């Protein structure tokens, strides 16, 4: 950019420092407190892992974590399959209407609360018993849209003539997909799956509305919400630290796969 005076440059660095402080201090405080022996935000009484240990003994949290894992894995698997096929279908055809575009874009922009009440109304109108399966059905909706958009971005630069070549050489459609198309788009498929997994692990509102009554289908974010409403406990700090570490890892991985792809 333009030449800047030292004073301007100092101001810009100062702005940057302030913004990063604003973004990271709340998280840093949370993570620090999770290792605080006394658990109180008022005083540091020594490093301890006891809140992590006490998490391991909390059956409500463990069962919620298991539920979240089930929901995230199943909905990611379905969404990755459907989203990838959808992306290939759209990009292969090249001609698609605005309606289709809107249909795929919609799950990413509809407010969560609207989709949540829509699904709640729908499931209860069908007299469906709600539980983990309805959360999975719901999570696939937005997960599939995200997987589709990640894979489509990769397919934009895909050379379809190699698919034709493979078919001309006598390969079946399935062989062509497995040996030609898939290897090329695999990084994007994995990146999309990781993104979907993280979104599903973190999703609260839609799960909250489609989980039905009873504690059996409580997911981790629902459990966290209930705990937060109850007040501050050192256990939440520890749980929050773990959840943050997991999502940041998954998304950094997803980002790297995507970046590696662009570099190819």
């Amino acid at each position, binding site marked *: 950019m333009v030449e800047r005076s030292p004073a301007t440059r100092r101001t810009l660095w100062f702005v*940057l420092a302030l913004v990063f402080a604003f973004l990271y201090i709340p998280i840093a405080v949370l993570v620090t407190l999770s290792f605080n022996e006394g658990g109180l935000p008022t005083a540091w009484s020594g490093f301890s892992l006891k809140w992590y240990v006490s998490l391991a003994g909390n059956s409500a949290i463990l069962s919620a974590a298991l539920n979240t894992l089930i929901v995230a894995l199943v909905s990611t698997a379905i969404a990755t399959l459907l989203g990838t096929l959808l992306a290939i279908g759209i990009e292969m055809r090249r001609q698609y209407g605005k309606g289709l575009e809107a*249909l795929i874009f919609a799950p990413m922009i509809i407010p969560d609360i609207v989709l949540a009440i829509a699904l709640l*109304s729908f499931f209860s109108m069908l007299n469906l018993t709600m539980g983990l399966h309805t959360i999975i059905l719901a999570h696939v909706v937005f997960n599939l849209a995200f997987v589709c958009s990640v894979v489509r971005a990769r397919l934009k630069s895909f050379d379809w003539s190699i698919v034709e070549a493979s078919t001309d050489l006598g390969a079946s459609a399935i062989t062509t997909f497995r040996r030609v198309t898939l290897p090329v788009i695999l990084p994007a498929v994995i990146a999309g799956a990781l993104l979907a997994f993280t979104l599903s692990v973190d999703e609260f509102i839609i799960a909250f*509305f489609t989980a039905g009554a009873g504690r059996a289908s409580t997911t981790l974010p629902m459990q966290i919400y209930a705990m937060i409403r109850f007040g501050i406990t050192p256990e939440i700090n520890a749980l929050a630290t773990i959840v943050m570490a997991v999502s940041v890892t998954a998304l950094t991985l997803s980002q790297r796969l995507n970046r590696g792809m662009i570099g190819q």
Partner: protein
Amino acid sequence: MAPALVWLTALMVVPCALVLALAFFRRGIYGGIEYTFTLENFGLVFDPLYAGIFLNSARIAGTATLVAVVIGYAAAYAIAAAPRRWQPVFLFFAVLPFWSNYLIRTYAWIVLLNREGLVTQLLRWFGYTGEPPSMLYTEGAVIAGLVYNYLPFVILACYAPLSRLNPELAEASRDLGASAMTTFRRIILPLTVPGIAAGAVFVFVLSIGNFVTPALLGGGRFQMIGNLVYDQFLTANDWPFGAALAMALIAIMLVVLMAQAFAANRASGHAAEVRSDANG
């Protein structure tokens, strides 16, 4: 692609159409739904009591948007002005918090703002001895939470046009005698409007429909549309009215999106003008 489209139709289009239809029915005496056509629910949306909540939500979301855009734009500007090789790193760390759980990011503010939280501790450390200030469960706390949660997106949206800005344009403006302020106002700002608009729309749309932040940081004292919808479905059991509120929310969202498209359109017109002026 068919299975995916069936999935989206069955579990998004149909349920949303159902909510739209629901909004035209009457609430049953015992909470159920009575299938007689009515426009009452939409009328109720404009009832002073509820219209007030809409205005309240719009004010809170609007303030959060304004604050987020000012901070986010300044941050994006500073990142774009940093040495090139550092820019991706700064950007990565600006967006990183956005990837952690929303509830947890909101909870972090409860830890900071509660009566014995870090802010109170800091005040004490500086010699403050009075009552701990009440910061949690205020409108300010709700706004701070919204800004905190959505800031990374504004930075990202504003950085894109700022990093693409041709430095020669600003130089030309300076050479022609414009002050730094005039250059910013007449050249840089107009060219980066699309980024600002995208960021602002994102913050506004997500804030106005939010129910988690007002519930946690506002302590339920600051009702927003999201909380109202939540209440109609889960506590008051007036689904038709809840559906009408949700539709009103969608309508607001569409208006805001159209305004964004309009702003982006005008900005691209202005960009062409600046460029042709620069060339001619």
